[in-house]
């Protein structure tokens, strides 16, 4: 039994999502190979070789993989994946994009967003916005899986796997990259932040998020948002936490001016400690909060900032 893990990276650096997917692979058991597909991604391969438990790193270094286009990556992973018992990727927007394509080409199901490994063929995954957890058994010869990274702890970097180039690049030739507008932030990414402070519609506008940023900087926190805050244009889409945004599980999650709709809870209710600050005592967010503060955020947040 050998497991293929698809690395998540930006051609320069490996993302910690990969450390977590390797942890899920280790829970399944067997040898673990990592595929790094990108362009000029040698440094990423070196990093992947250090992941504990990995025996081999395969590098597909070709211009057609530079932007992780699903059409090209899907073909590569389906082709390479034939020789494996399991193919795993992070349930990130990259993994969700190409992996179902590979599964369909292999004529097998995909198991999305696993949060637990019970055995080599049985896994747990949430559905209905996390209001139910299904234990599913796969009868496919190749198990294609995306991993909810917030549910697994990163593996260490004590390994020294071999690195091998592979050279069967196929450009499907039906799609191309045009441009990207990526958010640059000094603060930790939501996926790896130890503390997250999120704002909702109660923040009233984008400028007011500066109040949360000041608190975040004191706590070394990432800043998130509800869908309402993103839809209203207060902050960019990549800050959305929830069923259809990012799923996070930090040590501390502070929800400010967020009511606690099921779709928002789906993205943060596995956080270790939850704090809610809301002026409405009936807000459903208080039902999942370890510590609730009924207050006007425009008073509470400046006070919190000055006292930290």
């Amino acid at each position, binding site marked *: 039994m050998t497991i293929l893990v698809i690395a998540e990276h930006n051609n320069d650096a490996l993302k910690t999502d990969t450390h977590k997917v390797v942890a899920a692979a280790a829970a399944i058991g067997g040898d673990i190979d990592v595929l790094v597909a990108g362009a000029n991604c040698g440094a990423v391969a070196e990093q992947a070789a250090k992941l504990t438990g990995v025996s081999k790193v395969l590098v597909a270094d070709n211009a057609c993989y530079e*932007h992780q286009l*699903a059409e090209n990556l*899907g073909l590569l992973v389906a082709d390479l994946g034939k020789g494996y018992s399991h193919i795993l990727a992070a349930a990130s*927007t*990259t993994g*969700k*994009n190409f992996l*179902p394509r590979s*599964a*369909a080409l292999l*004529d*097998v*199901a*995909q*198991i*999305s967003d696993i949060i637990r490994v019970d055995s080599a063929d*049985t896994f747990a995954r949430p*559905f*209905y*916005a996390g*209001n*139910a*957890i*299904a*234990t*599913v058994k796969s*009868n496919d010869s190749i198990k294609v899986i995306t991993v909810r990274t917030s549910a697994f702890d990163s593996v260490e970097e004590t390994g020294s796997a071999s690195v091998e180039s592979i050279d069967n690049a196929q450009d499907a030739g*039906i*799609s*191309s*990259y*045009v*441009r*990207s507008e*990526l*958010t640059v932030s000094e603060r930790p990414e939501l*996926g790896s932040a130890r*503390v997250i402070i999120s704002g909702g519609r109660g923040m009233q506008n984008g400028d007011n998020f500066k109040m949360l940023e000041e608190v975040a900087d004191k706590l070394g926190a990432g800043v998130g948002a509800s*869908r309402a805050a*993103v839809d209203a244009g207060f902050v*960019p*889409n*990549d800050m959305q936490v929830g*069923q*259809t945004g990012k799923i996070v599980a930090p040590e*501390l999650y502070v929800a400010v001016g967020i009511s606690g709709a099921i779709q928002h809870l789906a993205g943060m*209710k596995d956080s270790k*400690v*939850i*704090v809610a600050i809301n002026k409405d005592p009936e807000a459903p967010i*208080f039902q999942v909060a*370890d*510590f*609730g*503060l009924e*207050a006007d955020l425009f008073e509470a947040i400046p*006070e*919190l900032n000055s*006292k*930290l």
Partner: protein
Amino acid sequence: MKILVPIKRVVDYNVKVRVKSDNTDVDLSNLKMSINPFCEIAVEEAVRLKEAGVASEVIAVSIGEKACQEQIRTALALGADRGIQIETDAQPQPLAIAKMLAKVVDAEQPQIVLMGKQTIDGDNNQTGQMLAALTNMPQGTFASEVKVDGDKVEVTREVDGGLVTVALNLPAVITTDLRLNEPRYASLPNIMKAKRKPIAVQTPEELGVEISNSLDVLKVEEPAARSAGVMVESVDELIEKLRTTAKVI
């Protein structure tokens, strides 16, 4: 050009489902059912492309039990021209859905398949990508903007780090994200008109697709409940609790 819009009947997004006491599934009896919100956004986008003169016909297709005709009617009331129902009680999984949709694509030859990025019941986020693979079409997933330009379509995608724009050869599959548009409300005259629009009914057998689900659901459980928290009276007390009780700051 034709646009095909696959839609799913799901439990309404405002409803919190409960797990059945025998842990075999969730209990959907007597719950309000609706069109999956992402599919509704897909219908809206297709109708807007038609109104802009880019598309000539919008076809809504749903796979499921007879009742999913209600959601096809919703799509028709929003402006789709005709419907196709593929009738089955078998609850097919995404790969089987994608195989049936691929047959419909074969028959209808749409230039764009516009669908939801995710169903809010299964939370799979797979079907569009699978359909694209099976039909060898490019895909623009999690779209927040769609611009058709000649024989190509530019799709801006919502990704973890921000936004990425790709150009796809037509025909292509596009899956919608929440901010692509805000669906309209169907007007009463349009609801009445929708009643006269045709819905063709087919079966998986007629399409030549055998529904074989390779995932067995062994059990369904409630997630672990969080233990009840406390209300604090002041910011000072909150800081104190976080420092000494929870030890997280």
